C-alpha cells in the first residue's frame, strides 16, 4: 500500500469496521455518491434503540421515552457542533436532502417569491435542487435563472467577471441556490466566494447550499460559508437512510411557513385556530425516524475521529491516482468530465468510454463485483449541457483504496474485450 494512504487513514482498520465487506467478499464499492456503506457502530446504535428503548419521542413521561428523546436531541447537538451552527435549534431533521430542499421551496419560497422575482441556480444541480425551484418560479410567475459551466465543468461564476455576475444576480434575485459539490462532475464550487459576491450585489439574497455531496467529504463551517441554509443527508455520510438535515439561520426559520402539519409540531389546536411550536419542532411533524436519527450521531463521531481534512485529502489523492490510471490505460477512448485540476474536484469521476453504452459498462463491471452508477445521475440538465445522454460514475470514500482503482481499470479492460 502506498505511503500516503497509511499515513492518513489506516484503511484496513477502517474496512474492518464495515460488516458489508464480510458479507460481500471482494466487493468493490464505487457508488458512495449514491449512498455510503455503514460502519458497525452505526448499525449497533440502531439496534440499541429498537432493542432497548424503542419508545416515541417528546411524548412519554416514562423513562424509556425520556431516554429516546435525550438520545434523539443529542444527535441534534452533535450535528450542530459538526457544522458549527449557532445552536441546535437551527438543526431540522427531515427525511433526506431532497425533502430539506422541498421544505425550503414550500415554506420559504412560497413566502418570499413574488411575480417578477428571480431564483438563481446552476446547470450542475441534482434534480432535487432544480425542479422544486423551476416549479415554484412557474407557479408564482418568477424568473428562473441558471448559471452555466465552462468547458472544464467549473461554474462560470468562478471567472472573476463582474459583468457576467451582474447579468445573473440582480436586485430582483431573492434566492440563490446551488450545490457545493457536483454529484456528476465532482466540482467543488467556491461557495464562500460565490455567496459573498452575490451578497455584495444584493445583500438581501438568501443563499441555499445543497451540501449533500460536501458534508460527508469536507469540513463545513456554516459561519464561515456565509450561507443562510444548507441541506444534507445522513445516508451519504455513513449514517442511516431516512434522515436529512436542514440547517438554517434561526431568524429566517422562525418567519417561514410550517412544512407539514400534524403531531409534534403544534402548540395548541382549537376548532377555529392552531398555534405552532417554535423551531426546530415547527418543521418536524409526525413521528420521525427515531432510531435512525439517534444512530446518525455515531456516523458523525466516526468521521470526526478520522478527521474531515484527512478524508478529503485521501479522496483527492485517490481521485488523482484513478484519473491518471484511466488515462494512462485507455488514452483517448476514455473521456472524463469535470475539472482538470485536482484542487477543484472531490472524489467523483464521471466518464464515457469509447462508444460503449453506460448501462453495458456498468453491467459488465457489476458481473465482476464492481459497483458503479450509470445514467444521468438525477442531473439531466447537466447531461444535456455536456451533450451526452448518460455517463458512468465511480466515486470514492474512506473505505476505498488504489486496489479498487486497479480493479476498475481491469474491469474496463474486460468491458472493451466483450463489447469491441
Amino acid at each position, binding site marked *: 500500500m502506498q505511503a500516503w494512504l497509511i499515513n492518513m487513514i489506516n484503511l484496513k482498520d477502517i474496512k474492518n469496521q464495515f460488516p458489508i465487506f464480510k458479507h460481500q467478499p471482494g466487493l468493490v464499492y464505487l457508488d458512495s455518491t449514491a449512498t455510503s456503506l455503514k460502519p458497525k457502530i452505526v448499525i449497533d446504535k440502531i439496534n440499541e434503540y429498537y432493542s432497548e428503548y424503542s419508545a416515541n419521542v417528546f411524548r412519554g413521561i416514562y423513562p424509556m421515552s425520556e431516554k429516546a428523546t435525550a438520545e434523539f436531541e443529542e444527535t441534534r447537538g452533535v450535528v450542530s457542533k459538526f457544522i458549527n451552527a449557532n445552536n441546535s435549534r437551527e438543526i431540522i431533521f427531515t427525511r433526506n436532502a431532497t425533502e430539506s430542499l422541498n421544505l425550503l421551496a414550500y415554506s420559504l419560497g412560497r413566502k418570499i417569491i413574488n411575480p417578477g422575482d428571480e431564483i438563481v441556480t446552476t446547470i450542475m444541480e441534482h434534480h432535487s435542487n432544480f425542479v422544486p425551484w423551476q416549479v415554484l418560479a412557474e407557479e408564482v410567475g418568477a424568473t428562473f435563472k441558471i448559471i452555466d459551466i465552462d468547458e472544464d465543468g467549473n461554474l462560470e461564476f468562478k471567472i472573476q467577471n463582474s459583468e457576467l455576475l451582474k447579468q445573473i444576480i440582480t436586485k430582483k434575485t431573492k434566492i440563490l441556490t446551488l450545490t457545493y459539490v457536483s454529484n456528476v462532475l465532482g466540482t467543488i464550487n467556491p461557495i464562500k466566494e460565490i455567496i459573498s459576491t452575490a451578497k455584495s450585489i444584493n445583500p438581501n439574497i438568501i443563499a441555499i447550499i445543497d451540501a449533500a455531496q460536501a458534508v460527508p467529504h469536507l469540513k463545513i463551517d456554516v459561519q464561515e460559508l456565509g450561507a443562510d441554509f444548507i441541506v444534507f443527508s445522513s445516508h451519504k455520510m455513513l449514517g442511516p437512510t431516512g434522515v436529512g438535515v436542514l440547517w438554517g439561520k434561526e431568524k429566517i426559520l422562525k418567519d417561514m411557513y410550517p412544512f407539514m402539519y400534524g403531531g409534534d409540531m403544534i402548540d395548541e389546536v382549537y376548532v377555529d385556530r392552531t398555534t405552532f411550536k417554535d423551531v426546530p419542532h415547527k418543521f418536524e411533524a409526525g413521528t420521525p425516524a427515531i432510531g435512525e436519527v439517534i444512530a446518525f450521531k455515531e456516523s458523525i463521531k466516526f468521521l470526526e475521529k478520522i478527521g474531515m481534512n484527512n478524508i478529503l485529502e485521501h479522496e483527492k489523492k485517490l481521485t488523482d491516482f484513478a484519473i491518471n490510471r484511466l488515462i494512462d490505460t485507455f488514452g483517448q477512448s476514455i473521456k472524463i468530465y469535470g475539472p482538470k485540476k485536482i484542487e477543484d474536484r472531490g472524489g467523483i469521476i464521471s466518464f464515457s468510454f469509447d462508444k460503449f*453504452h*453506460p*448501462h453495458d459498462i456498468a*453491467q459488465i463491471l457489476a458481473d465482476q463485483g464492481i459497483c458503479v452508477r450509470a*445514467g444521468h445521475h438525477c442531473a439531466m440538465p447537466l447531461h444535456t449541457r455536456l451533450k451526452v445522454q*448518460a455517463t458512468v460514475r465511480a466515486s470514492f470514500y474512506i473505505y476505498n483504496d488504489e486496489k479498487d482503482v486497479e480493479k476498475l481499470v481491469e474491469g474496463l479492460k474486460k468491458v472493451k474485450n466483450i*463489447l469491441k
Partner: protein
Amino acid sequence: MNIYQDIILDHYHHPHNQGRLIKPDKSGKVSNPLCGDKIEMMIDFEKNKVKEVKFHGEGCVISTASASMLTDFAKSKSKEELKKLNSKFIIKMLGIDLGMTRIKCAVLPLEALHKLL
C-alpha cells in the same frame, strides 16, 4: 447467467434490419430517458401482415439485440399476432436472465413496434 452471450453480442455488432424505409406506412419513436436509449422503427404492411420493418437509433447491447431479433420475428406476422407479444416473449426471445433495470432496455423495441400496429 451472463447476459453478454455470443448470440446477443452478434446481434449488437451486426444488427439485422437496421436502417430506414423510404416512405414507410408508419413510423414511431420511443425513448428511455433514464439511459438515453432512442429507437425509431419504420414499417410497411401488406394487407394485415408486416412486409418490411427497420429500426435505427442509439441503444445499449440489450436494446439493440432485442430490436434486431424482434424485427426478424415480426416479418410476415399479422398485426394481431404482434399485438399479443409481451415482455415475457422478449425475455424468452433473448434467452437471457435480465434484472429489473435492464428489462426496460429489452422491451423498448417492442414498445416501438406496438406503436405502429
